[in-house]
């Protein structure tokens, strides 16, 4: 699903060069739920941005769903983001003056779907996250957990091949965080590959595999065990 080989990314200013990723290599198989951990500034978010085609990289190769994405144009990257990748962010990133329906609708609009198809998908996605009754609410009328579930519905509505989650529970209390993780596990069980960046060891334990990043490199990689998620959830 995702294969990064020796990917490097350097941020340059007039005064300083920052090596965000150095010879970063990682492979994620289809159906995996991978947690990427590491201290602040280790390169987790840069990895996630590159994985989500939100940023380009300097050297190395990146194959996503069988396609080498190294030399793609901005428009091509937008299209792949829209069709294959779902994003979940720490701060939810909902558009404040759009209601829940319209927020979930955003990625579908850019896919050129018919109105009826969009409506069906939005309904299903909101049903899945338990917010079908809140379609006309604006984000400010929802709790943090509900907002994150809307963001998950938005990520899922387009039926992406894999989800990229950046600290998805970082802004939530423990109860809401648990609900969100339960939801992510459920989504993964349905076949969606998930790569999640997190600081939270509890949350990381719920993944199939933990990848530890330090100074822009993968330093530790637990093997894929395909452990039963229900059991994992019980352990967590």
């Amino acid at each position, binding site marked *: 699903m995702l294969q990064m080989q020796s990917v490097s990314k350097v941020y340059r200013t007039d005064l300083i060069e920052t090596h965000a990723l150095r010879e970063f290599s990682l492979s994620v198989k289809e159906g995996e739920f991978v947690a990427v951990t590491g201290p602040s500034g280790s390169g987790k978010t840069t990895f996630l941005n590159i994985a989500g085609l*939100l940023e380009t990289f300097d050297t190395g190769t990146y194959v996503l769903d069988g396609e080498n994405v190294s030399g793609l144009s901005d428009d091509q990257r937008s299209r792949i983001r829209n069709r294959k990748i779902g*994003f979940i962010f720490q*701060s939810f*990133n909902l558009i404040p003056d759009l209601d829940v329906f319209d927020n979930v609708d*955003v990625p579908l609009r*850019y896919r050129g779907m018919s109105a009826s198809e969009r409506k069906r998908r939005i309904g299903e996605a909101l049903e899945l996250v338990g917010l079908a009754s809140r379609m006309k609410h604006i984000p400010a009328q929802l709790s943090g957990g509900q907002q994150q579930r809307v963001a998950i519905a*938005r990520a899922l509505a*387009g039926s992406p091949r894999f989800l990229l989650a950046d600290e998805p529970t970082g802004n939530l209390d423990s109860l809401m965080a648990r609900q969100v993780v339960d939801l992510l596990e459920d989504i993964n069980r349905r076949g969606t590959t998930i790569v999640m960046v997190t600081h939270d060891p509890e949350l990381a334990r719920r993944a199939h595999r933990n990848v530890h990043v330090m100074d822009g490199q993968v330093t530790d990689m637990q093997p894929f065990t395909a452990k039963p998620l229900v059991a994992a959830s019980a352990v967590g």
Partner: protein
Amino acid sequence: MFSYNLRLGLKSLRRTPGVAALMIGAIGLGVGVCVTTLTVWILMSSNPLEHKNDILYAVTMDNWDPLQPMYPRSPELPPNQVTYRDAMAVFESDIPTRKVVMRKASFVLDPAHAEGLKPFAIVARLATRDFFPMFDVPFLYGGPWDEDQDRAGAPVVVLSKDINRKVFGGEDSVGRTLQLDGKDYKVIGVLDEWAPMPKVYDLTTGAFDWPEEVFMPFEIGIRQELPSSGNVQCWRNQTLNTFGEFLQSDCVWIQFWAELPNRECVERFQTFIDNYAREQKKLGRFERPINNRLSRPDEWMKANEVVRDDNRVLVGLSFMFLAVCLLNMIGLLLAKFLGGAPVVGLRRALGASRGEIFKQHLVEVGLIGLGGGVAGIVIAALGLLGIRRMYENYDALTRLDVSMGLIALGLALLSGLLAGLYPTWRVCNTQPARYLKTQ
């Protein structure tokens, strides 16, 4: 997608109503000022005889002072009117298919039969009968005088629609009698609405005045020795004791137009008036080099400086003012769009291409432009109303018509889009990753 972008644009404007109002106001003010000056300029420079531009000619002959031209700033131009004796001599030519000599005179109209109406002054045009077909003057009732009445100076009049409404209540007054300066005149025609602007047929007094209220045969003015109420310009130092002496003088006061249907007619008529001038030279007149002109309506308007240079400068300045308004709008748009960059970053992350973001923001600036257009129409209408209040002669020039309204909307839309290009381009280049952590 357009309707979606339209909805997003409206939402965005509602989110920042103050900034939106400022931008609409800026564009509206600029467009309003431009449309105000443009309206006046276009009407000033329009040619109401465009359709006859190739066949109608104002006839002028240089009988002026050999020591100095009539117009020191434009020494190449002959006087813009002709003397009576030259007019009558050239009028004998049968080369033009139609020809007209004319002048203005003032009368006091006594509406004895109109209750509550006191005698009042009117301005009349005294012209030969071809005036009406040559300048496409429309009749509501009756028609022009015939050739015999023309030649004999019969006491007949054609009324403007306004004066007919005022004196006869707008009814068909053909056959009724009108008293002018104590003399009776029979009404033989009433005009329909007619107000060519500029008044090309006589640019010597107020190019933007309304047409005269009463029309009558030219010969009446000669037989009754009526003084001209238009411009009379003389150069020779001579005492004129009688009307007869005035008619034979070198004073110019008659307007002369000829209808010449083709090039050959024009050349023949030019030769005719040049030969006439040569003959006059032998008699000690026309002492300047021969300079007789046949001017088309557009040339005539230009020669008489209907649109002055300061009008053009004013239009130029108004567009510069619009540019300043647009610069302000660019600043406001830039602040607004870059303020929304986090949402743009999010949309880009969710799959919007740069093109989609560009279109979305362009629709928004289009909305601002249209809003500015509506504001501009209101401001232009107020501006024209102001001009009308200050200069009553400009009444006909200061009316905002549908086409100018559409021009205002188009100009505002174009201005909005132009002003929006840079801010839109900037926001399109938003890197999606930059704002996702911080939104």
